């Protein structure tokens, strides 16, 4: 979950995910390198092991579409626990009080809301690969072009910000140089995603989610063993009453903004759609519901570490490392190692998912349509698999090039995605459930929501951007749907992705007269936009 870092911008005027100065280290450089090598090799080894299953493109891209409840739930939890969740939540609580931790946990509502959608997605598109593919088949080019731009912008900014956070966090925790930490985390994720595709991503997510949950429990129990919750409450009441205030305006605004950003992120991102396609029929709704339930307490428990710091007598020179400082103070080297591993897992579980899901977009929604236009030949399974490898390596290289200079303002670009993803909420819900949702309504909603949301971002502040984006998009979508209603046949979605084009090329009557089976950029039916 990312949006919470927007709060820092308001508080400090500029965003630094984690300070890279040398103070606040909890581990020696040697220990840091040791853990990096140990767990890096473990993830790559597991990736190769699970990757042996990925013998087809379906296996590589969507793990054979038969993922069970255990791995389905774990991948929802692990992917949504980013390094910000484990590192920033304590800082949030320390600066915005109890509301800060609660605001962060509202990001789980997006997982709850996506649960019924995931079941519907799986039923409507049993052979689907990407969210953009759904929008293309549902709304045609008019919807898929703005949606693809938003999806790629969000995926790349999240990927780059995660790589940068990796370099900065490992530097802050153990003094490993930023460039080395960032490169190692990225290379490890690229390698095991390359070898195992979605099998490796979901398999490692299972191990990573258990490490994250157990790590948090161990550290939190250590805190409670040293200081009673009542003592923490008493200390806060005496020294920092604002942190316990029920009426804390900045935190209340963060709550609604986080919630809406979370909805937009999950509803539109192929990271979550690819998992809906990967889970066995009937598993998706349960896995997302359970995933949301297991994710919900993570920011609260992590936030408690921040709230407990004053009562534990831990001086906080750097708010962003308050969680690790508490763990290292109470549990010594073992606690420091545990936090290092939890942070590494949080980073890897998000970066690998982004690499896999974004490479699916590149292959299915960019490379395949272009190749088809140029050669008029359907891409084979082996060809798409090869394109995936190039896409994953390419995404890794682009991310590394963008993250290497360590430009602080680059991380702020992710916040622009707030209104953009917020504007996708209604077109997605409408497209999945209502026949009348039309291409023009979807396009107008995304363009208007994004535009006015960005205006609000600069004119008012980050804390209203997602809200304005989603609200404007909703109103425009509703009005356009009434003025320009559609009568969509949902059966068109259930064909295999290439069926409409294959049928047409054989000279049989097209089953997709509106041209919605075409790819992004296709010019069909005299260049009409649907």
């Amino acid at each position, binding site marked *: 979950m990312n949006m919470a870092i927007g709060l820092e911008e308001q508080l400090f005027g500029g965003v630094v995910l984690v300070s890279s100065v040398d103070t606040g280290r909890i581990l020696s450089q040697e220990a840091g390198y040791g853990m990096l090598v140990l767990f890096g090799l473990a993830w790559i080894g597991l990736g190769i092991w699970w990757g042996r299953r990925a013998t087809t493109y379906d296996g590589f891209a969507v793990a054979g579409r038969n993922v069970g409840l255990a791995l389905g739930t774990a991948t929802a939890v692990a992917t949504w626990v980013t390094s910000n969740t484990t590192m920033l939540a304590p800082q949030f609580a320390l600066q915005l009080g109890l509301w800060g931790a609660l605001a962060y946990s509202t990001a789980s509502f997006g997982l709850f809301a996506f649960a019924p959608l995931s079941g519907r997605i799986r039923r409507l598109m049993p052979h689907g690969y990407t969210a953009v593919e759904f929008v293309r088949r549902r709304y045609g080019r008019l919807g898929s072009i703005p949606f693809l731009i938003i999806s790629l912008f969000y995926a790349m900014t999240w990927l780059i910000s995660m790589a940068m956070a990796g370099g900065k966090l490992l530097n802050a925790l153990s003094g490993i140089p930023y460039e080395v930490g960032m490169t190692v985390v990225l290379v490890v994720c690229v390698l095991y995603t390359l070898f195992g595709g979605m099998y490796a991503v979901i398999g490692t997510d299972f191990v990573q989610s*258990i490490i994250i949950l157990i790590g948090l429990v161990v550290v939190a129990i250590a805190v*409670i063993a040293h200081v009673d*919750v009542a003592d923490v409450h008493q200390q806060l009441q005496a020294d920092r009453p604002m942190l316990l205030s029920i009426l804390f305006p900045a935190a209340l605004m963060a709550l609604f903004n986080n919630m809406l950003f979370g909805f937009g992120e999950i509803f539109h991102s192929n990271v979550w759609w690819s998992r809906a396609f990967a889970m*066995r029929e009937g598993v998706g709704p349960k896995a997302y519901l359970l995933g949301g339930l*297991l994710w919900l*307490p993570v920011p609260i428990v992590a936030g408690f570490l921040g709230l407990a710091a004053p009562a534990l007598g831990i001086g906080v020179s750097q708010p962003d490392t308050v969680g690790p400082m508490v763990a290292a103070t109470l549990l010594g080297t073992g606690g420091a190692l545990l936090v290092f591993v939890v942070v590494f897992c949080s980073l890897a579980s998000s970066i690998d998912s982004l690499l896999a899901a974004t490479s699916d977009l590149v292959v299915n929604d960019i490379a395949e349509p272009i190749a088809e236009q140029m050669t008029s030949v359907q891409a084979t399974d082996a060809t798409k698999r090869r394109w995936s490898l190039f896409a994953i390596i390419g995404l890794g290289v682009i991310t590394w090039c963008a993250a290497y200079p360590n430009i602080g303002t680059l991380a702020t670009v992710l916040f622009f995605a707030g209104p953009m993803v917020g504007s996708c909420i209604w077109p997605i819900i409408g497209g999945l459930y209502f026949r009348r949702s039309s291409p023009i309504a979807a396009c107008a909603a995304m363009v208007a929501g994004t535009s006015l949301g960005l205006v609000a971002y600069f004119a008012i502040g980050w804390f209203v951007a997602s809200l304005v984006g989603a609200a404007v998009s909703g109103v425009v979508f509703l009005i356009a749907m009434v003025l320009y209603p559609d009568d969509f046949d949902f059966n068109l979605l259930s064909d295999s992705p290439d069926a409409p084009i294959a049928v047409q090329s054989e000279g049989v009557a097209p089953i997709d007269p509106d041209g919605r089976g075409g790819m992004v950029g296709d010019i069909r039916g005299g260049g009409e936009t649907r």
Partner: protein
Amino acid sequence: MMFPLWFLELIVVGGLILCGLGAAALIVFWILDFKEKRIW
């Protein structure tokens, strides 16, 4: 107006229990899926 102590205790202890139960549930689900041969 401040958050009362019972609320802080509720969300911290409740969150802790939920995290612990969550990790246990994932392992139990995995064992059940493994027995039924439906992990993947």
